[in-house]
């Protein structure tokens, strides 16, 4: 955040002081309103009855039927069950991605070994591969080993996260001084100790970014759970939400309550970690581009 505060007013110098800054703020506030409006309107719809929404003109203010709508959602779908499924998959995936990617990134960034360049180069190629190509065979593979419909089928393919390795690699290269690793080596620290005790604590900001990135992706993933979770009683939140939408078009306020309940936890989590997340995201983008 210091980068922001010290960002010199190069473009907003003497000449374009008051009026221009004001215009910029007005445009930015309009943009913020547009990006926040759907949340506000979802709350409006979720707190009113379907009749209020279908009225012309519709009711524009918050209502008092939120609890009733939430109760309908809970009676219609297994909301907490599917949410639990999503949380389990997202947490396991995130933890494993963090470990696998940071260990590989640390190795690539700080060690030289035969084939290193080639392996890292193929990694960059992998990032370009559209994974939609793999969905069908992945599904066939999962049905061959009998994992269709199971939660572990969700987590496994997303563990190979090339972006995470690439991104952490950039960070470790500059963020972990070689002198420190050398010192640890002299003190007798082996390979894994250098990773666990020296590198890992130093790359926390990058790791927290990757954690949120992986968690959000996993939480919001739709096509793969839709394909592989064939048992309708055992799905993730997104699939359940889409099913709620399909089956209950007449009860809009209830559907909207479901949307609110499914979207809100992530937005809250994001807002809490947002500062670190965006700082991390920008560092990676600059180095990666």
């Amino acid at each position, binding site marked *: 955040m210091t980068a922001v505060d010290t*960002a010199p*007013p*190069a473009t*907003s110098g003497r000449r374009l002081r008051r009026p221009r800054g004001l215009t*910029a703020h007005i*445009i*930015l506030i309009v943009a*913020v309103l547009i*990006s*926040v409006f*759907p949340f506000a309107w979802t709350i409006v719809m979720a707190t009113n009855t379907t009749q209020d*929404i279908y009225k*012309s003109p519709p009711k524009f203010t918050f209502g008092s039927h939120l609890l009733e709508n939430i109760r309908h959602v809970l009676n219609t779908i297994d909301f907490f069950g599917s949410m639990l499924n999503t949380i389990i998959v997202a947490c396991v995936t995130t933890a494993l991605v963090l470990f696998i990617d940071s260990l*590989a990134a640390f190795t*690539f960034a700080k*060690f*030289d*070994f035969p084939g290193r360049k080639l392996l890292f180069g193929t990694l960059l190629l992998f990032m370009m591969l*559209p994974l*939609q*190509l*793999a*969905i*069908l*065979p*992945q599904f*066939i593979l999962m*049905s061959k080993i009998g994992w269709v419909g199971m939660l572990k089928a969700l987590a*496994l*393919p997303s*563990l*190979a996260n090339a972006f995470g*390795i690439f991104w952490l690699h950039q960070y470790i290269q500059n963020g972990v001084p070689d002198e420190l690793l050398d010192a640890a*080596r002299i003190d007798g*620290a*082996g*390979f894994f100790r250098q990773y666990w005790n020296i590198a890992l604590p130093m790359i926390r900001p990058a790791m927290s970014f990757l954690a949120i990135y992986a968690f959000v992706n996993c939480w*919001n993933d*739709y096509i793969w759970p839709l*394909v592989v979770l064939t048992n309708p009683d055992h799905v993730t939140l997104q699939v359940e*939400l*889409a099913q709620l*939408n*399909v089956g209950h*078009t007449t009860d*809009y306020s209830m*559907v*909207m309550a479901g949307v609110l309940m*499914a*979207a809100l936890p*992530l*937005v809250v989590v*994001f807002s809490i970690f*947002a500062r670190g997340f*965006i700082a991390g*995201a*920008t560092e990676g*983008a*600059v180095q990666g*581009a």
Partner: protein
Amino acid sequence: MSSPPVTGPAEAPQRLGGPGPARFRPRRTPPAGTVRPRRRGPLSYWRQYLAISPFYLIFAAFSFFPVFYSLYLAFQRWDGMGDMQFVGLQQFRFLWSDPVFWLSIRNTLVIWVLSTVPTLFGALMLATLLHSVRRFKGFYRIALYVPNVTSIVAVAIFFGAVFSNNFGLVNAILGMVGISPIPWLSNPWLIKVVISLLMTWQWTGYNMIIYLAGLQAIPTSIYEAAKMDGAGPIRTFFQITIPIMRPIILFTVVISTINGLQSFSEPQVLFASNAANANLGGPGQAGLTTLLYFYQSAFLNNDYGYGAAIVWAFFVLIIVLVAVNWRITQRGRKP
């Protein structure tokens, strides 16, 4: 392991910095007083290979192998149950003459252009403005990024409600000022507009953050020099900011191309409620993207071979478009 106990075997690779490929790790100089181990064979790096192996194993099993297996599938006829039957290029021949496939390609391209262009221009504009203001920066960044962490399913349901032909908010507001309802979700073009709006809403903040990072990396001395030479803000923007930002713009164009062409959830959720058209992309199949068509062929019609042919043809399309974009963005680099 015959290495000296002070150093341990794992650090052998770094010690090679001296005699080995010096350009590789020039900064690695062995600390004074340690014995430099001899050069070793690949097997002595087993720790390093072990450390990177999980990714490569999982990737090989669940991404690399499947990608090429789907190419194999594209030459077969298979419903996933019975026996596979080799049919040569028949799937691709059928694909070539399948009007629905070409419709899905057209839909995908239109949606991609309608969403990517406003997204990137809007993002660049917002990033420039955000870079120029001094107060509330953190607030703006977070508030503008929030759409990107919202699930597509939730957003699609919301857009479906707001643009609903009969009871949607947009038509209600239009009705209040005397405009008759617009068939957002049944006109072929408006369907694409709604899907594109959805994607624009979701991705502008993301690209803005990336642009902002690029803007902050530009040294201010360049701007000061431009100002001294009498360049106004518009001219500075086009002749200094844009050229310096070119690599980052290229990065966002590539990412947006890959993301934008893969639209699936948006039309799938938007039109899933229409039972007659379930998974067909809405009235007139105007929202049928290529990925949605793939999903329909492979998983609803159980035509695995054809599904595989669709994604591979689609993959070729993505590569061509990324290459074309690359060329366009690179052009004018040296005017």
